[in-house]
Each structure stands twice: as C-alpha cells, then as structure tokens.
C-alpha cells in the first residue's frame, strides 16, 4: 500500500508541487552537496552558515519524513527510478526516520554552538575543511539510516567513519592524533567485517536489498556461510557501536576530539550503528533465528550488563570531564544493547527511545563541558570547582543532564530506564531489573562527584582564573543557547514522554513485526 502511494506520488510530482516525495533523497543529498561547496569556496564564514543552514534543513526534512512514515507507513524511494530489488532503494521506516531526526537535531544544535575558533588545530584560513568533514559525516550517518541496501549502508558507514577520523584528529591536544589513529584502526576493522558479512550474504542470496534478502535468507539459513556472514555483520557493527569489550577506541576519541565533534559524535554515531544492528537482527535475520536458534541473547545480555558496570565504574575514576562522559556513554550504550537483547517490544522501545534521550542528554553535557573549557581553559573535574556561582546556567545544565544520565524521574533518562525495566519484567528476568537499578546508583556516584565540585568545591590558587588569566564568567549566549536547548529537551521529554515513547514503540513493533524468519 505504501509502495503504491509513493508510486502514485512519483507520477503526480511532475504535475503537482508535491516535492516531498523526494525528501528521502534530499535528506542525504543536501549535506553531500554542501560539503564540496564548503571545500570549494574556502571561506570559513560561508562554510559555517551553509553547514548550519543545511543541518537545520535536514532536521526539517526529517520531521516531515517522520510524520509521513507514521501516517502512511514505510516510505520508499527508488534511486534513479530503478525499482528495488535491482536498483538501490531508500526505505524510510519509523525507526529510521526516528534515528535521522535525532542525528539531524543534534547536528543542527551542535553547529549552532559557536566554538569561537578555539577548538581545532586548523589554521583559521583552513577551517572550512572542518565544516566540510562535518557535513560529510552528517551525510554518512543520515544515509545509513535511510538506505534499504546493505552495500549502501557500508558505503555510508565508511563516509561517516572516514570523516569522523579526520574530525577527531583536529582536536587541539596532540593526543587527538593517536586517538583518531586507534579509532581508524578499530573502525576500519569494523567496517571491513561488515563488508565481509555483506559479501558472504550476497553470495548466498544474490541480492543486496535488505527486504529482498530477508525473504531469501530463510531458505539458506542453516548454512555455515550465512552464520559466518551474520557473525561478521554483528561483530563489525559491535565495534562501531562500542559494545563491551570492543569499546576501547571510544574514550580517547571523545576526549581529544574538538568539543563540538565530541558532542555531535556522542549523540549520533553509535546511535546510528544501533539502528543498523537492530535492522540486521530483527529485519534481516528475524528475532526467531537470532535469539531462539543461535541464542544471541546469552552473549549480548551479559556483555550489555558488563558494559553498564564497567563503563559506569570507570567513569567514577576519571579526572577529565570528557573522559568521564565518554565512559558513561559506554555504560549507557549497555542499556541500549540490553534492551535489544531482550527481544521484546518494551526492551526495544527502551533502546530506541534511549537513542533520542541519551543522544540529547550526552550532546548537551559535552556542550556544557565545551562551555566550561572555553571559560576556564581546562576540562578536568577540578576545573568545575566553584562554578555554581560563577557560571550558574552552565552548572545547572550539567546538573540536569547528569540527573538524566542517572535516570531521575522527570528527566529523559528515567523514561528509557523505566521502559527497560518493564521489558526485563516482561521477559521475566527480575534480576535484570535489579541490575539496571544498581548500575544507576553508579551513575549517581560519578555525577555527584562533579556536582559536589560545582557547588561545594573551592578553586585554589590560579584555578580561580580562567583562560588568559581572566576571571571566569558565564559562557557567551551563542554557546549557552544550544546547550540549554538540549538540556531543556531532556526535561521536556522526561515529563512529556508520550511523543517520544509512542514513536519508539511503533518503531519497535515495526522492527519486531518485520521478522523475516
């Protein structure tokens, strides 16, 4: 039905002005065209304005797409007019539209953030390169969630990965180079594994279209080739998703990247990989094969629980704020993969709603750290000492974001955890619910360390002076605005959780219903 309506739409478009049928392509093409334009014009001001404008446009397009998908079902777009499964098809599902909405929102807000040129190693006259790479990364991440073609997913994965290596390497600290290099090695292994998996499955089914392959796979599901292909896909994605114990690249990458890049990647890159993993597990292979026949849950569940504890415990001992947030991300990703491994509607809903809730929370917190770094010149936990009076808005933003990481009721983090506990209870695993609660207590510890420093810490000696020896003041408005919007979103969607939860739930139902097995 959906395919028919889009088909009719494509015929009508020549007559009417219904340009929105092209939105799936436009969503990817906009940043993809803007990136070389930034590169060509070599102007930092032009690149800045263009990239921000494009990011907001993609956000608008994502909103329209989400509404359309919710109203009409899956939106299909044949590239070049070649119908699937022969041509490459862009297929926007509820889950996909949800993910691109989060990615484009985070991109738009981080590009709104004015880093005041203090952030990257690039000389001012070459800073347009930063925006070019940023847009390419955005295009890759959006493409991964939109395309319905496995090889296309790989291509977009590489576009986003390569540009994110470049972006991370731009961090001012020289250790950014090493962080970027180790991410490059791990990311390339991950991408390579994904590619090998796609190759093996293509060999067995003769198709690259996800839906078409899902129909052909059951016939060859008991072959070893398919099993190996699935393993390669899963491990490759697990590296990109930083599933414990494949998370080692993440802390350094997020710590040493330029501030806005940390904020952007922390809110988006792993989330898109999560979506692709959900699509591979539930749409391509089907929950029955993955969880009943080969028992992935027995592997993914303990690893998720381990990630929750290892990530949160490591976060407690970090002296650097960005590293603290990065380790916290590993723990939070554990909640998301735990939801996936439950393989029920509540669990997957919690994972998908956490894509938004954690994306907004963590990006907001990284921007808070960027504000602190701009005024104090440092990003250690110590540098927050006494900021409660000197940077009140920034401090409050950290407290609210931190509460969302813990999962305090009234914040977005609570919504995800509540749903996750419901999922654990629905799966009749009471101990998992207990584990989620206990691990949240660890988050209390690492968040409280910072909060204590903000409100009860006393800056000593030169610590009371900010960068360039000036007294520390509140961050400028152009930095504060996007930070506060993100943090406010965690409260708004913590209290008013109907829209996020209902979209995530219909996405979960759709993914679970799409089981090919």
């Amino acid at each position, binding site marked *: 039905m959906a395919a028919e309506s889009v088909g009719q739409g494509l015929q009508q478009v020549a007559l009417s002005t219904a340009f929105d049928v092209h939105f799936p392509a436009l969503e990817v093409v906009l940043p993809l065209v803007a990136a*070389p334009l930034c590169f060509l014009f070599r102007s930092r001001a032009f690149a800045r304005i263009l990239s921000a404008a494009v990011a907001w446009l993609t956000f608008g397009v994502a909103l329209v797409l989400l509404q359309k998908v919710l109203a009409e079902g899956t939106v299909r777009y044949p590239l070049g*007019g070649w119908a699937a499964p022969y041509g490459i098809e862009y297929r926007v599902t509820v889950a996909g539209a949800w993910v691109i909405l989060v990615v484009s929102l985070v991109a738009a807000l981080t590009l709104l953030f004015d880093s005041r040129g203090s952030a990257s190693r690039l000389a001012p006259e070459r800073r347009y390169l930063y925006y070019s790479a940023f847009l390419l990364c955005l295009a890759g991440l959006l493409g991964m969630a939109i395309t319905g073609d496995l090889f296309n997913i790989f291509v977009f994965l590489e576009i986003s990965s390569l540009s994110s290596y470049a972006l991370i390497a731009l961090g001012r600290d020289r250790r950014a180079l090493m962080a970027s290099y180790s991410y490059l090695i791990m990311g390339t292994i991950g991408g390579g594994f994904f590619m090998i998996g796609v190759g093996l499955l293509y060999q067995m089914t003769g198709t690259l279209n996800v839906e078409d392959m899902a129909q052909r796979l059951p016939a060859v599901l008991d072959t070893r080739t398919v099993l190996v292909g699935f393993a390669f896909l899963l491990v490759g994605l697990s590296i990109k998703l930083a599933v414990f114990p494949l998370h080692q690249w993440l802390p350094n990458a997020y710590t040493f990247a330029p501030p806005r890049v940390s904020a952007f990647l922390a809110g988006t890159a792993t989330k898109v990989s999560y979506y692709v993993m959900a699509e591979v597990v539930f749409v391509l292979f089907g929950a029955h094969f993955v969880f009943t026949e080969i028992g992935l849950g027995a592997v993914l569940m303990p690893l998720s629980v381990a990630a929750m504890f290892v990530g949160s415990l490591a976060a407690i001992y970090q002296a650097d704020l960005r590293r603290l947030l990065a380790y916290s991300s590993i723990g939070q990703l554990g909640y998301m993969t735990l939801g996936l491994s439950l393989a029920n509607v509540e669990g997957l809903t919690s994972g998908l709603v956490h894509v938004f809730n954690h994306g907004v929370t963590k990006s907001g917190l990284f921007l808070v750290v960027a504000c602190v770094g701009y005024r104090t010149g440092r990003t250690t936990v110590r540098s927050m000492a006494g900021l409660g009076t000197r940077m009140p808005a920034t401090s409050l933003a950290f407290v609210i974001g931190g509460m969302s990481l813990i999962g305090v009721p009234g914040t977005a983090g609570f919504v995800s955890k509540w749903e996750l506990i419901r999922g654990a209870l629905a799966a009749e695993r009471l101990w998992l619910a207990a584990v989620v609660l206990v691990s949240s207590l660890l988050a209390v510890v690492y968040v409280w360390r910072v909060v204590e420093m903000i409100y009860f810490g006393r800056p000593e000696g030169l610590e009371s002076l900010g960068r360039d020896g000036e007294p520390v003041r509140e961050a400028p408005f152009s930095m504060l605005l996007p930070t506060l919007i993100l943090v406010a979103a965690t409260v708004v969607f913590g209290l008013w959780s109907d829209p996020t939860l209902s979209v995530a739930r219909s996405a979960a139902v759709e993914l679970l219903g799409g089981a090919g097995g």
Partner: protein
Amino acid sequence: MADERGPVVDDEPPMRMREQIVLQVGGRLLTPFILLFALYVQFHGDFGPGGGFQAGVLFAAALVLFGLLFGVDRVQQVIPVSVSEVMIAVGVLLYAGVGVTTLLLGSAFLDYDALSAEHGQHWGILLVEAGVGIAVAATMTRLYYAFGSLHPDSEPAAGEHGE
C-alpha cells in the same frame, strides 16, 4: 650519506631516481599511454567494464609514476595543489549536480531519463562517471602530494629543485 659536515651532494647517493636511466626512459614512454588508457577506461565504462573510479586511479597512477621519476614539483607544474583540490570538489558536485538536476526536472534522484527521453541514460551516466573520474584522479593526486612533498599545503617556489 649525509654527515655533519655538509648537505648531501647531488651525485653521491646511488639510489636517486634521477639517475635511473632505464626507469626514466621507460616511465617517460609509458606515461602518455597510461593517461590514454585511463581515458579509454573512462569512456568505455558506458558500455563495458570500466568506469570513472578505475579511470581516475589509472590517471593518477600515471601522474604518480611521473612524479616518482622526475620529482613532485614537475607534476605540480601540470596540476598544482590548488587545482587538484578544486577538481575534488568539482567531481563530486558534477555527480551530485546531475542528481539534483533530475530532481528539479521532476524525476527521481539520478533518473537520467529526465535529461532527455532518447539520450538521457547515455548523457546521465557519462556525466556521472566523469564526475567520479575527476574526483578520484584529483583525490589520488592530492594524496600523493600530501605524502610526497615537503610542503604539502603549498606549492613550492618555481624553479626550486627543478631540473
């Protein structure tokens, strides 16, 4: 071997490419044919195996070979760093531009039939592959400049190191 007393004297190191007469003559002979073959692969790609990516790699390979034998600066006289950078962007824009044009003509992204009912498919793929070829050749060349030149971000002063 360089020591503390002074710089390397030109005619001392045995492995200088500029002294490899056989390689130099061979490379000089081969370069135009590699470039020509790249163009063949580029335009033959419409009808058979080949296409923009392979052609771009071949084209850049010819430039890299020439650069290895006669110095990066000689290649940069033909394709300066700035030109290679512009070509990277132009290649991508040519590809995407065809797609955007078909969009604006009311068809799907990259639906070449929108360009012309009769020749659309041919023109479309020709332009797209040209875009790919330009972007790939320029990117490979720029990568070679980045690794093969002491001043990767700028063009050396004219005549420096020239032979």
